[in-house]
């Protein structure tokens, strides 16, 4: 079937829906309407508004750096002139651009009613991606950081009852939720686990009653969930094994922060040419082809970063692909968010 016609010219509609031997009259009518709209749309060239760039970056000064526990510091960020900051809700986070240019997300762990400062807390991870090392070693009082947000990726809703489960630094988004639940008079419990009490921040900011269970070591999912009130919604933030264990065990409502991209493991570096004759970008062992592609094509489309949504599929002109992720809509293509080169070079047809 060819339904040709460029611009607003003639349109052949598809066959009649009920099998009569003619073009579908209703669809011919739709084609006329759409062609009229297409003609009208061209008049939009006149008085076309310009797209105004929106700069949402905040430049905030570090007002305080506080040791909260072994290996955990908190930063208090404020407007240099003392202006009120954009509001946020429990479960909100900031994107913080570090002096090196690294961008990291940190949950807001202060009081949403305090409009003059944001508090974030960072655990030192010596073998991590370097962001926490940078904050611990080279960010001090008086430094100015670029911050984006706040945004909410872990929304806190409802009226309870709640069971909060926090593992280690996972207490950061949970802490404002506990306080909000307490203020609202909701029925809640908290289970907060860590290696040792000395490594667990904000213990002194939690109510000192039986609703709070502080646990050293790693309890089982059943133990974590044992104090849940009847009909509770679970809010969970902790290391991936803990999240997986609770997800497998809990049958009720479960809120947890999803990780958007898994780290690249056992990746080999390769070169990727973006378009035949286009620029060649190196893909490092620990980054995805998508990350490299975005350096030269910042408008490239992607979404899930895990290989299931299919948005980032691109045609491959040359090179063997180590294909991962869901089935592709076309042969000779790849999902750049998870797939890599078999050899040392790929050419994308973009």
């Amino acid at each position, binding site marked *: 079937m060819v339904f040709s016609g460029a611009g607003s010219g003639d349109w052949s509609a598809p066959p009649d829906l009920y099998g009569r031997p003619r073009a579908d009259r209703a669809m011919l009518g739709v084609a006329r309407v759409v062609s009229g*709209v297409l003609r009208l749309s061209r008049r*939009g060239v006149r008085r076309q508004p310009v797209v105004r760039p929106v700069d949402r970056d905040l430049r905030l000064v570090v007002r305080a750096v506080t040791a909260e526990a072994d290996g955990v510091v908190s930063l208090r960020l404020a407007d240099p002139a003392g202006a009120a900051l954009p509001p946020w809700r429990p479960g909100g986070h900031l994107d913080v651009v570090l002096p090196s240019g690294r961008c990291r997300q940190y949950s807001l762990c202060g009081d949403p009613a305090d409009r003059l400062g944001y508090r974030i807390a960072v655990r030192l991870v010596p073998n991590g991606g370097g962001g926490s090392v940078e904050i611990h070693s080279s960010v001090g009082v008086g430094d100015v950081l670029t911050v984006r947000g706040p945004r909410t990726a872990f929304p806190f809703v409802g009226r309870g009852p709640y069971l909060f489960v926090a593992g280690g630094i996972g207490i950061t988004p949970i802490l404002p939720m506990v306080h909000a639940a307490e203020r609202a008079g909701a029925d809640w419990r908290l289970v907060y686990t860590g290696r040792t009490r000395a490594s667990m921040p904000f213990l002194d900011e939690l109510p000192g009653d039986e609703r709070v269970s502080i646990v050293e070591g790693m309890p089982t999912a059943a133990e974590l969930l044992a104090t849940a009130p009847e009909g509770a919604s679970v809010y969970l933030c902790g290391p991936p094994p803990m999240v997986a264990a609770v997800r497998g065990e809990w049958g009720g409502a479960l809120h947890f922060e999803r990780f958007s991209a898994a780290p690249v493991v056992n990746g080999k570096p390769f070169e990727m040419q973006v378009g035949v004759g286009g620029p060649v970008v190196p893909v490092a062992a620990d980054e995805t082809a998508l990350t490299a592609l975005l350096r030269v094509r910042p408008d490239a*489309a992607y979404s*899930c970063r*895990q290989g299931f*949504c299919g948005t980032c599929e691109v045609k491959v002109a040359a090179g063997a692909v180590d294909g991962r992720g869901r089935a592709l809509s076309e042969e000779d293509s790849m999902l750049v968010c998870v797939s890599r080169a078999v050899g040392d070079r790929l050419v994308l047809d973009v």
Partner: protein
Amino acid sequence: MPDPTDKVVLHARDVRFDWSTVPAHWLPGEPVASHAMNTLHLVLPEGERWFVRVFKQALPHIRDEELRADVLGFIGQEAMHAEAHQGAADHLAAQGLDPAPFVAQIEWLFRSLLGDRDLTGPAEHQWLLERLSVIAAIEHFTAVLGHWVLTAPLESAGADPTMLDLLRWHGAEEVEHRSVAFDLYMHLDGRQGRRLRAMVIVGPLLMWMLVRCTRWLLAHDPQRPERPRWRDYRRLARRGLLPGPRELLPAFWRYLPRSYHPRDEGSTELAVAYLASSPAAKAAG
């Protein structure tokens, strides 16, 4: 003034549905209501893939990084909606109701008629903006319908749990991302005339399309249900099993004033609460 923080970071969910036990009349004894909602499986996969194609074209024009992140999240969610409804459409075919003839028309509508039309230069850009305003108008209704399906008494009418989870997961994500298409249109164009034109066309056309699809499904159902009548619709709307004129007509008017913003439609809170208990969303990685 609504709370500006009532907005969540969008991400696609890797949902799977097992259709093997879902009957064609998944609302027991209600073929009209079942098929009125089965229309979504025929119309949405192509429609949402079209959203994705148009939004991908809009990406290079965006000058707002937060909006870009919203648009990328929206694209992934829409792509998953298309896949999920495609699964339900394939299941209809497996039950002897092959949707291909209807889907062929929908394909023609979204791929040819509303496609790129081989335009260039300013005409191409204006057609992109026009289609963004059309998507914003459609997304207004998907938010209204998403809110409706989250609150409709479908369980007590015995709805199949898998189908209900598909509809409510989808509805909840529509509510979650209800502002994105509108914000994108306002960022790249924002002219009121184009917005009104889109709604005046989209509102009636969308309703007509869904009615036409419902009739077609009922006419081709191998279980040979009775011919649908308007009084069936009135009865179902009264029972809350289909969205009624009292939901749909005011929704049309609400879109028209300059003060309209989708954040006033539906409830993020309700959507987030559903997604926390949806079997498919909970199982998704």
